[in-house]
């Protein structure tokens, strides 16, 4: 403490320790918070095709097309320990081969300060809804769920499923188109 440099050193070290303690406090104040919010999913149109899947089993596989509406108010999730949300819509279903299939159909990043009221109409899925066989046709129970990763300033990275999933049956017959 007798020179400028040694004072600057202890001042800097002390400030960093205090900052670390504050960051931990930020984590603790939000660690046990419930980050679920109600989500309203509505599927307006389902289409099913049977096409060549060049990435999968090299056979004709089921490809689903879903048009959906999505509305949710994400404002309660945001607090001082949230930088962004990564939302994704996933489909879960069971087939004869696999007891659980999960396919991500659509995703969206909501940054802090952006509009937190989701109100989306007639959305097409971003990614292909391919089954690895023919498990989509006449499947009676395909569940769509909106889940989100909460990206924090400090602490754990929680993965939360929104309450309000929807189950829908898929059509019995394939859509036949001449050109695709």
């Amino acid at each position: 403490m007798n020179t400028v440099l040694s004072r600057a050193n202890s001042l800097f070290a002390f400030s960093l320790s205090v900052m670390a303690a504050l960051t931990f406090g930020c984590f603790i104040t939000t660690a046990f918070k419930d980050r679920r919010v109600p989500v309203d999913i509505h599927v307006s149109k389902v289409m099913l095709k049977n096409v060549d899947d060049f990435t999968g089993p090299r056979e004709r596989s089921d490809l689903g097309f879903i048009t959906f509406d999505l509305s949710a108010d994400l404002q309660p999730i945001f607090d001082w320990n949230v930088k962004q949300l990564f939302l994704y819509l996933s489909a879960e279903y069971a087939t004869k081969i696999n007891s659980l299939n999960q396919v991500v159909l659509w995703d969206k990043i909501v940054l802090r300060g952006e509009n937190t009221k989701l109100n989306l109409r007639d959305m097409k899925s971003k990614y292909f809804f391919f089954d690895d066989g023919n498990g989509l046709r006449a499947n009676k129970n395909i569940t769509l769920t909106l889940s989100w990763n909460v990206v924090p300033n400090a602490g754990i990275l929680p993965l939360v499923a929104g309450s309000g999933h929807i189950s829908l049956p898929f059509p019995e017959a394939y859509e036949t188109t001449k050109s695709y």
Partner: protein
Amino acid sequence: MLSIFKSIPTHMDYKGQKLAEQIFQGIILISAVIGFVYGLIIEQFGWTVYIVLAGFAVSCVLTLPPWPMYRKNPLSWQPALPEISGESSQKPQESLKKKKHK
């Protein structure tokens, strides 16, 4: 160049060093508490960081330079003894021996 830097006084006395440490710890802790409460209320952790950084800057200004308030208790050194000619060659050796015995 170096002699210019060395001519700047940076020294604090012992009580001044203790006071400087107490001052910067107090300022940073108070700004940390204020920043935490403020950030919690307005739900922005960035403001907590800014307030702590402001406390850091203020305590840098207050405690890095040796302000007069840190130099109020200088050590009272024994006044320099006048050298007596002739014994000057022996005296330093005697004092060294005494220090070793202690």
